[in-house]
């Protein structure tokens, strides 16, 4: 009897506060794995440039620690608390984007995408803030619209809501990939909120057809001046054609993956990180993972992302309300889109565009805001009552 009492007690406690340990484990695993890989990928260059092999790793560690604290804080706060900031955040994040053009903007890697936060020594990417705010805003919007999402007006509002952000990000920071991600997240949230399939099939089909047509068009007019974006397409189709030039980074990534083989060269043994592969600790870190840990390492990372996806799907499915579910869907979309696009770029499945691998790539803003988003997901998961799922 006493035993059964104890079990019931434990169940009761659990049902009081559900916590998704699997999610936490996957996130921490990716984070720690990221530290190791950033150290491995960047130590050689970091030592040469800053005299400290752990330079990048330390910066990432600091950002991640801040992010983890914020994650815990956010997860303790009921997610409905954030509802009231949705519109303010939406507008704030939009207005923050042009700030990169002011003296607060920080130039790095030939692009101005960061804002200096005075005093902390960390730079923020307004695009990252925009992603978080967009998720929050659209989740609130969907819950407010309710069934009206299916009306033309509701649908139109949902489609138009992220466009301004996308335009700002593209125009002010010259960051097409972030704009695409923001739009992708919004599109996914709309898809989940809407009860229609037809529209999305039509849009998806149309999108694929348009992209195919564009690629064919560019391929056929090779030689004439195709501009910056179409050049990327050409390089994508044949990276060796411009090995020393535009195809350099892609080709170096392919070298890295190719020389890793099945089991890799072993942790720390990458050759490509020795200044051969640009951005080896950043956008291209997945190719260093493949070089050092081989196909095995690549499969592990992809598996971890699939597991993360699955955990968030479970939480979204069991969210207490539409708002909570949409929040989780947005975060899931953000992580999944970035991971898919990053790996696709590294494997030259799509043309080269700068997208970082969530939790693993070097980048303070990115990891900080991702952890805040995970905090939101955890907050939603706390609202799940176990009795409902059993």
């Amino acid at each position, binding site marked *: 009897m006493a035993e059964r009492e104890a079990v019931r007690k434990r169940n009761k406690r659990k049902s009081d506060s559900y916590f998704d340990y699997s999610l936490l484990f996957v996130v921490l695993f990716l984070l720690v794995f990221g530290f190791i890989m950033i150290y491995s990928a960047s130590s050689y260059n970091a030592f040469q440039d800053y005299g400290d092999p752990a330079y990048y790793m330390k910066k990432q560690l600091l950002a991640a620690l801040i992010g983890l604290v914020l994650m815990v804080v956010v997860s303790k706060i009921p997610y409905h608390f954030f509802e009231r900031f949705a519109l303010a955040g939406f507008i704030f994040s939009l207005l923050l984007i042009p700030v990169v053009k002011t003296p607060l903007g920080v130039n790095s890697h030939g692009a101005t995408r960061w804002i200096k936060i005075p005093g902390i020594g960390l730079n923020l990417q307004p695009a990252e803030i925009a992603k978080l705010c967009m998720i929050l805003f659209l989740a609130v919007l969907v819950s407010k619209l309710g069934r009206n999402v299916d009306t033309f007006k509701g649908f139109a509002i949902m489609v138009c809501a992220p466009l301004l952000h996308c335009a700002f990000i593209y125009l002010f920071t010259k960051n097409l990939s972030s704009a695409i991600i923001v739009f992708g997240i919004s599109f996914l949230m709309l898809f989940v909120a809407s*009860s229609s399939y037809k529209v999305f099939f039509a849009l998806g089909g149309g999108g694929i057809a348009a992209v195919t047509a564009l690629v064919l068009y560019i391929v056929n007019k090779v030689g004439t001046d195709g501009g910056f974006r179409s050049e990327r397409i050409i390089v994508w189709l044949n990276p060796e054609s411009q090995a020393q030039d535009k195809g350099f980074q892609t080709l170096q990534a392919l070298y890295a993956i190719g020389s890793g083989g099945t089991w890799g060269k072993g942790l720390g043994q990458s050759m490509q990180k020795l200044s051969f592969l640009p951005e080896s600790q950043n956008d291209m870190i997945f190719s260093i993972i493949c070089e050092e840990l081989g196909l095995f390492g690549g*499969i592990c990372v992809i598996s971890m992302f699939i597991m993360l996806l699955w955990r968030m799907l479970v939480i979204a499915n069991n969210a207490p309300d539409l708002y909570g579910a949409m929040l989780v869907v947005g975060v*899931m979309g953000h992580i999944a889109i970035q991971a898919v696009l990053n790996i696709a770029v590294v494997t030259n499945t799509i043309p080269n565009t700068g997208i970082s691998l969530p939790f693993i790539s070097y980048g303070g803003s990115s990891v900080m805001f991702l952890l805040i988003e995970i905090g939101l997901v955890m907050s939603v998961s706390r609202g799940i009552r176990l009795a409902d799922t059993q």
Partner: protein
Amino acid sequence: MGEYNKIGNRKKMLVAGLLFTLMFLVLLVRLCIMCINNEHYSQMADDLHERERKIKAPRGKILDRNGVVLADNKTVCTISVIHNQIEDPEKVIEVLSRELDLSEETVRKRVEKYSSMERVKSNVEKTIGDKIRNMDLAGVKVDEDYKRTYPYGSLASKVLGFTGGDNQGIIGLEVVYDKVLQGTPGLILTMTDAKGIELEDRGERRQEPIAGLNLVTSLDVNIQTYATQLAMQAMAAKEAERVSVLVMNPQNGEIYACVNVPEFDLNDPYRLSESEGAEGLTEKEKQDALNRMWRNGCINDTYEPGSTFKMITAAAGLEEGVITKDSPYYCSGYTVVDDRVIHCHKRTGHGSQDFVHCMMNSCNPALINVGLKLGVDTYYSYFEKFGLLQKTGIDLPGEATTIMHKKENMGNVELATVAFGQSFQITPIQLLTTASSLINGGRRVTPHFAVKTVDNDGNTKEEYEYPEQAGILSEETGALMREILEMVVSEGSGKNGKVEGYRVGGKTATSQTLPRSSGRYIASFVGFAPADDPQVIAMAIIHDPKGVYYGGTIAAPVIRQLYENILPYLLK
């Protein structure tokens, strides 16, 4: 729970999740394909990361027929500095300038130049290289290397040839057998980062060099040395421009000696001798002078053979049957061909003589008579049959071709002059080869130096075979030629070539170089022994001798002295 369309949203979420999972799986499959079919990119990556450093293969030696080394290698060192590894530049400059005997500023320039690796000095003696290496100076690299050395200095210089800075043959056998001698260089593959800095902890792959094969030649150091001495004596005594001596085995074409004095020092092949006036030459003049110095007169230059060519006319006449050895001929001191009077070298005439005596006296009108009896067509066909229009195929570069009248331009006058060896040009090796085929039973052999290649343990790797054309001349005519030529030496114009105790056959020649008015002569003698079964044939050519210039008087003694020394040794 909740007020929202749970079922619909849940389904949508699942669809979205599945779509993403599907995308991940597609990428996974792509990654699998990339990692498994990775030869292409992994090879390209290796090429990118690996820095090749060649290890020179030791070049094969050149040996004489008895295994005496004619061309060898010695270990020398190349001293280089690597700018960004130098810790104490002043000390490096001080030590290197002292040890290498270079001015301080020269070394300073190398040390302070920002480059991955800067060569300070090459061809440094091994002892000095070892000394520098033992000092263990950071940033100073001592690489061992091979340098060609020729123990006999100038001996057979124009035959052996020498090598250039990359160990490649420049002239002579060194260039003809370059591939065999070179071997395969080894490789040290080291890993480097993108800036080309070698990574010490990544280890290195090493491919050992394969040494070049040793080349065994038909040369005989003793014969070559002795022939060189005789040639130099003759050159000095006659104040001649140059003297060539060829010694060959008429049975198989193996060349025992090939002398062209003045020779040059193979260990210092770019130094012009004083007679060339090394001072004040332009770069081109200097190169031309060097090329002249390196020329092998026996092979690269043609000359008018003169009376030695009467052997060929005689053989053709005897073979064709237009004369026999008893055919009588009366020499009045001149003969008239068409409208031309051609004198005999004995203006008073040789009088009545049989053909053997015509040859013994080297009578011009008699041989003109043979030529005219043969006629242009027949004579020309023998000229061709004896192989005089082709190159001999000797294994040295730059063999000169025969300069001969075209058949259609050949009248009786031309025929008459060709019959006693004038108005056309051949190389000495061509004459010797043709003479060989007349006395060896009618086989035209290919003159050559290379006999076989051997590895360092003495195992034969490849034996060279040379084409041989039989049936040039009948055995009977050959026997007759040997008999006549023996008479020439024993009792005729070649009696200075007689060697006590041996039967020597031969023919002398004295030809005037063009233009005839220059008063320059070429005296030569071809002699073979034993006359009944020739085992060696030799030839001496003295260019532009002063004073007495008759081949029988000055060239025949050279071969006689040579034979006196080498016949006991060769025919034991």
